[in-house]
């Protein structure tokens, strides 16, 4: 069976490709070039300072060593129009986006999957720490957390449809990171010792505000910091500098520590308050995807995660209509940021997820 492996040049997707090769599959490696690698005239790379050429080289090297074909596909246009533009729009709207989800949903498991089908591939595999399996009783696919609690990436995959899951493989999902590294060493992969990658690949220096300003020059660069009563406490350089729950970088000198509670892009206000005011129990989400293909009947007990590093907390979720849902946490959760994803779990299984509106 021919399987296309999305290869980033990192150790996870390299081991994924290696395991599929060992299992006898006809592996084809594809790496996505996502942004222009050439330097601009002033010597600065188009996006960030990028190690990405090295990553592509690493992927090519691994493919050659394992003996399967590897191609680099140019997804610059798609990446810009689906991932980067959305990222800029969200930040300008006072939300905190997760580009990785869009990259998975709109590139790896759609555009790349479409290309893969053109090459007669039966599946697309990635190096994600997540598990997919077919439930014979329910006659549908299930998406589960990766075995490695610390590396689990199921949060980034909540948008996958049954059709996409039917053609998805996560060969390292049943392994822990140390086990993956052992495989890499056993196989003599050149990337065995490679450190884990950045969270946002196209902003390697982590300075998202500067990235937003460079790519959306029209973004407002001035506004007021107010408390919950509306009293002005100071000024700021644009709401795109802030994320709900943020404490550092407010530039205020007050007695008690203050946190960002809310971002109001229309009047460019950043509302701050004490940690007590940060807790939220009720969350409404839109563009909700239910892994089963349809929403559960009535209120359902789940645990829910509101950001990648959040420890999921008990809650009750209920569908409120066309791809929307309402969720109530048993206890208030700190820093629920609009724009982030909320993902519902039943134990290890992903029930569904959506985008946090409020």
């Amino acid at each position, binding site marked *: *069976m021919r399987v296309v492996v999305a290869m980033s040049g990192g150790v996870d997707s390299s081991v994924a490709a290696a*395991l*599929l090769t*060992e*299992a*006898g*599959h006809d592996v*084809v490696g594809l790496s996505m*070039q996502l942004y222009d*690698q*050439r330097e601009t005239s002033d010597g600065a790379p188009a996006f960030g300072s990028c190690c*990405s*050429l090295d990553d*592509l080289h690493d992927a*090519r090297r691994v493919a050659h060593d394992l*003996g*399967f*074909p590897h*191609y*680099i*596909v*140019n997804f610059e246009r798609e990446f810009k129009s689906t991932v980067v533009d959305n990222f800029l729009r969200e930040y300008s709207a006072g939300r905190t986006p997760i580009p990785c989800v869009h990259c998975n949903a709109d590139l790896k*498991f*759609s*555009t790349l*999957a*479409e*290309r*893969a*089908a*053109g*090459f*007669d*591939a*039966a*599946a*697309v595999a990635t190096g994600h720490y997540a598990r*997919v*399996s*077919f439930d014979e009783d329910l006659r549908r696919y299930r998406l589960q957390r990766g075995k490695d609690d610390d590396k689990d990436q199921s949060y980034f995959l909540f948008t996958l*449809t049954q*059709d*996409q899951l*039917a*053609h998805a*493989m996560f*060969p390292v999902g*049943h*392994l822990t990171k140390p*086990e993956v590294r052992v495989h890499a060493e056993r196989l003599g992969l050149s990337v065995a010792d490679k450190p884990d990658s950045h969270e946002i690949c196209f902003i390697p220096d982590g300075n998202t505000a500067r990235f937003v300003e460079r790519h959306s020059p029209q973004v407002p660069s001035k506004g007021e910091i107010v408390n919950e009563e509306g009293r002005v406490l100071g000024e700021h350089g644009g709401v795109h500098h802030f994320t709900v729950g943020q404490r550092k970088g407010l530039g205020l000198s007050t007695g008690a520590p203050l946190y960002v509670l809310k971002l109001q892009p229309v009047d460019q206000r950043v509302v701050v308050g004490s940690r007590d005011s940060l807790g939220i129990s009720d969350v409404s989400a839109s563009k909700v995807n239910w892994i089963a293909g349809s929403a559960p009947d009535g209120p359902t007990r789940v645990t829910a995660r509101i950001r990648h590093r959040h420890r999921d907390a008990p809650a009750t979720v209920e569908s409120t209509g066309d791809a929307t849902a309402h969720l109530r946490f048993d206890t208030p959760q700190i820093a629920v940021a609009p724009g982030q994803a909320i993902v519902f779990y039943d134990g290890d299984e992903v029930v569904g997820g959506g985008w946090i509106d409020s």
Partner: protein
Amino acid sequence: MKRFSVRIYLDFNATAPAAPGVIDAVCRVLRDIPGNPSSIHASGQQARAVLDDARGVVATLIEAAPSDLVFTGGGTEADNLALRGAAEARESSGRRHLICSSIEHEAILNTLTGLERRGWRVTRLPVDRSGSVSPTSLASAIDEETALVSVMHANNEIGTLQPIAELADIAHSVGAWFHTDAVQTVGKVPVSVRTLGVDLLSLSGHKFGGPKGTGALWVRRGLRLHAQHTGGRQERSRRGGTENVAGLAGLAVAAAYARASMAQHASETARLRDRLESAILETVPGSAVNGAREHRVPNTTNISFDGVEAESLLIALDLDGIAVSTGSACSSGTLEPSHVLQAMGLPAAHVRSSLRFSLGPQTTDAEVDAVVDRLPRLVEKLRRLTHRATHLVGAGAPTRGTTRDAVRGDT
């Protein structure tokens, strides 16, 4: 690797396999003639003789005098020497204007962009829909400050032959020098520096069966270029550095073979190319040839497949054992939209759906048949996928349970 067992190679404009005798010549020199051509002693003299012979043979291929040939490390270096060498040599006389066509190889375009940043004025001539530079456009761009005009003999992507002699006349009328990058013609079709009327001509060894890393710049006698590789007195001080004796011996063998077999190969390749082209146009709906079908090298055709990403088609063909190409690859090896097709005024979608097929002396009727047999189905499949929703084909995909277990069973 399994995928390389049966291959059909239709990418001769990228590089050609070694011509008969080339490998033996390279090995023989490496083994038996270890000397440095600059050395006085017998061993050096032996190496010098190899180099002299090679220069004579390569010069004959382009009807030039051996002493006017500067050996280089390939076509790109020859282009750099021509452009930078001429620009710097003519700078002091107030000639700071350079002209090229907009469909030149990157070796020309990027070199001129570099000179532009350093203060030279650069004009890039447009081409028409057929891919030709018009003499009128050169005549209106050129002026008394023009130091050099560089227009390629044949384009690497579409194969169009340019009216070099006519363009060179125009350049000379105002005292400008004329360079042509003949990397895609030398060894494939008769090239004579006498009838072309140029002042500088670049050639590359590996495009016609010589070793990679060999090439030459022909320089009209009396022209003084600024050397770009300064060092020893090699190549009459025009290119310092110990010569690639073994490689150049191989280049000479390829040149001799090309000269002897050119007429036969050119007509045979043209026949196969025309057959491939006609069959594709006939069997693949929505296919069209880019550029003029007359006035081009005999081995090249560039075809667009409406509604298909050429990148996908190229990969699908490769997985089927057929090697073709699109425009130039960028640093990472992905495809960039062809600047040549863009300059011809083709719409972006059309550019992204174009593939280059370039044939060579080794191409056979059976290979053409195989391509014609597989191509229509691949195009049809890719078109279907592009037009449907964004997920994988369900039909034909095996049940997945067993394969997953196989992978998971690994630990």
